[in-house]
C-alpha cells in the first residue's frame, strides 16, 4: 500500500482551456484577486519566462507581443472542476484527503505493481472526464509522495519512489524543496552542511528533534519512508457540517478571508438545507500554513451561537464575517479558513421559542434569493454585509470567463467552424 499525491498541472489555466479549443496551444495566465498578480500560467506561458506572482502591469508588453490570454480568477468554475476531480479520485480509494483545490492525497492498493497501474489510470481518467492534466507521485509517505509528484511533473506525469531509486531521488532533491521545510529551516540545514534530502535523511533523530521540533522529526521519518503524517480524510458526521478549502495563494487581508468564508458558509448551508436541517452554532476557524516554518504561525477559532436554530444564509454570512473581524490578526499569511455548523437539528423537530416571533419575511427572502440564483447563477446575488473601513469594497474581475458549468445562461457554445462553410461553398458551386 502506498500514498499517492495527485496534483493538477497549472490548474487555473488548465480550467480556462477546457472550454476554449482556440486556446489549446496558446499561452494563458490567470490573475489573483483584484486582477493583481499572475497566479497561474499554462506551459506555453511558462516558456515565456514570466515570473510567478508578478503584477500584470509589469508585463503588459510581453502579453501583447506574444498574444497571451489573460483571465481573472473564476473561482466558481475552478471549484466545480475541482469537485469533479475529487469525485473521480473517490472512485480509486476509500481514503482521499483533499489537500487544496487541486491536490489530493490518496492511499492506493496493496501490491506495488497495482499502485503504478492505478496511477496511470487516474491520470487518464481525470484527463478524459475533465480535460485537466494531472501528475501523480507515489511513495510510502506523504512527504515522499510530494517529491515523487514533483519528479513526475517533469516527465510523463507519473513517478514512483521505491527502494530502487530512493537514494538517487534524495540526492537530487535540495532541502528547500522538501515539503514541510521552510526557508529558515533550510538555511539552518545548509549552514550545517546538509544540502540534499539524502544528507538530511542521514541526520540523527535527536539532533533534528532538538533543532526542528517534532514536526521536523516527522518530516525526517517520512523521508526515510516511514509514514508519520496522518491522512486527514473527511468523515460524514451528522453532528457537524464543514466547508473549507486551502487557498492557492496565502490570504493576508481580512476582506479576502471574509469573502472566502462567506462562500464556505454558503456551501455549508446548502448541505444543511439539503439534509433538511437547521443549525444553532457556526464556528469559524482560520490558520496559517503550519508547513511553512518561515511564516509566523497563528490559528484561532470562534463560535457564534444563534438564539434559535436557523438555515437562513444571511445569518450565517453575517456571523462568519463578524467572527473573522474578532479573530483576524494583521501580518499573517493564512492558508485556510473553515466554517463548521454544529448543534444540528432536523427541521421538523424544532420547538419554537415561545418568546420569539418567527420572521416569515426571512423565508420569503431566502426563497427569492434561491430563485434568482437558480436562474442567473450562484454569483448573481449574494450577501454583502457592510463592514468597517470600506463599505463599498468589491473585487475587480474584468477578465472573468463564463460560468460554463454552473449557469445555464453561460454555457459554452458549439457553432459551425469556418471549415464547414468553406467546403460548403465549394460543393455548392461545383
Amino acid at each position: 500500500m502506498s500514498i499517492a499525491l495527485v496534483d493538477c498541472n497549472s490548474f487555473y489555466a488548465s480550467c480556462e482551456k477546457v472550454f476554449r479549443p482556440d486556446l489549446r496551444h496558446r499561452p494563458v495566465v490567470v490573475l489573483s484577486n483584484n486582477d493583481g498578480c499572475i497566479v497561474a500560467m499554462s506551459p506555453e506561458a511558462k516558456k515565456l519566462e514570466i515570473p510567478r506572482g508578478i503584477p500584470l502591469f509589469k508585463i503588459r508588453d510581453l502579453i501583447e507581443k506574444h498574444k497571451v490570454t489573460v483571465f481573472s480568477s473564476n473561482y466558481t468554475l475552478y471549484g466545480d472542476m475541482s469537485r469533479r476531480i475529487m469525485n473521480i479520485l473517490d472512485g480509486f480509494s476509500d481514503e482521499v484527503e483533499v489537500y487544496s483545490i487541486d491536490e489530493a492525497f490518496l492511499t492506493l492498493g496493496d501490491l506495488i505493481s497495482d499502485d503504478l497501474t492505478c496511477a496511470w489510470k487516474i491520470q487518464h481518467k481525470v484527463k478524459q472526464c475533465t480535460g485537466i492534466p494531472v501528475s501523480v507521485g507515489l511513495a510510502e509517505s506523504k512527504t515522499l509522495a510530494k517529491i515523487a509528484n514533483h519528479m513526475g511533473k517533469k516527465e510523463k506525469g507519473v513517478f514512483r519512489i521505491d527502494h530502487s531509486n530512493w537514494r538517487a531521488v534524495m540526492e537530487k532533491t535540495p532541502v528547500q524543496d522538501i515539503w514541510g521545510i521552510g526557508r529558515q529551516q533550510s538555511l539552518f540545514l545548509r549552514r550545517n552542511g546538509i544540502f540534499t534530502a539524502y544528507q538530511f535523511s542521514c541526520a540523527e533523530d535527536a539532533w533534528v528533534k532538538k533543532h526542528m521540533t517534532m514536526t521536523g522529526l516527522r518530516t525526517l521519518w517520512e523521508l526515510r519512508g516511514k509514514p508519520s503524517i496522518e491522512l486527514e480524510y473527511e468523515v460524514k458526521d451528522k453532528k457537524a457540517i464543514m466547508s473549507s478549502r486551502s487557498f492557492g495563494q496565502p490570504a493576508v487581508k481580512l476582506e479576502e478571508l471574509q469573502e472566502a468564508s462567506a462562500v464556505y458558509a454558503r456551501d455549508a448551508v446548502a448541505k444543511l438545507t439539503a439534509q433538511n436541517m437547521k443549525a444553532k452554532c457556526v464556528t469559524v476557524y482560520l490558520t496559517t500554513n503550519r508547513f511553512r516554518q518561515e511564516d509566523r504561525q497563528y490559528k484561532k477559532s470562534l463560535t457564534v451561537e444563534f438564539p434559535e436554530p436557523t438555515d437562513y444564509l444571511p445569518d450565517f454570512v453575517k456571523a462568519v464575517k463578524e467572527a473573522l473581524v474578532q479573530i483576524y490578526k494583521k501580518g499573517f499569511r493564512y492558508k485556510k479558513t473553515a466554517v463548521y455548523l454544529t448543534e444540528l437539528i432536523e427541521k421538523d423537530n424544532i420547538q419554537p421559542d415561545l418568546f420569539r416571533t418567527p420572521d416569515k419575511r426571512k423565508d420569503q427572502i431566502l426563497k427569492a434569493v434561491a430563485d434568482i440564483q437558480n436562474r442567473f447563477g450562484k454569483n448573481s446575488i449574494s450577501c454583502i454585509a457592510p463592514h468597517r473601513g470600506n463599505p463599498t469594497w468589491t473585487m475587480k474581475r474584468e477578465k472573468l470567463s463564463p460560468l460554463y458549468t454552473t449557469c445555464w445562461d453561460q454555457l459554452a457554445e458549439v457553432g459551425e467552424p469556418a471549415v464547414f462553410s468553406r467546403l460548403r461553398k465549394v460543393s455548392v458551386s461545383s
Partner: protein
Amino acid sequence: MIPLYLSPVKAGFPSPAADYLEQALDFNELLVRNESSTYALRAQGDSMTGAGIQPGDILVVDRSLNAVSGSIVIASVYEEFTVKRLEIKDGNYFLVPENPGYPVLRITEEMDFTLWGVVTFVIHRIQL
C-alpha cells in the same frame, strides 16, 4: 433505480397506495449518468437538424464515454467546437453532418482534431 417506499400513516390508517408509492421521476438521474464527466453545451449551428439538434438546444455531453463510429460527438477542428456524427471507415475519421447543406469532413492531421465528448441527450425547448 431502487424505489423508495413511503408510508404515510398520519391519518391513522395505512393508505392503499402505500405499497406502490415510489420516488418522483428524477430528471438528473435520467440525463446524467456520470456527474463528474457530464457537461451542458449550447448548439448554435444547424448542421445537425436531421438528428434533432436545432440552434439554441442544450447538448448533454459525457466525456467519459468512448466515441465509436456512429456516435454524435463534440469535437474541435481548427481550434473550434463542432457537433457532428463521427464515422470511422478503413482507419479514416469523418465528421458527418445531418443536413444536406453541409459537407462531410475527412479528418487530416493539420486540422488538430480532438474529441471533446459524446452527446447523450439533446434538450429542445418547445414552450417558452
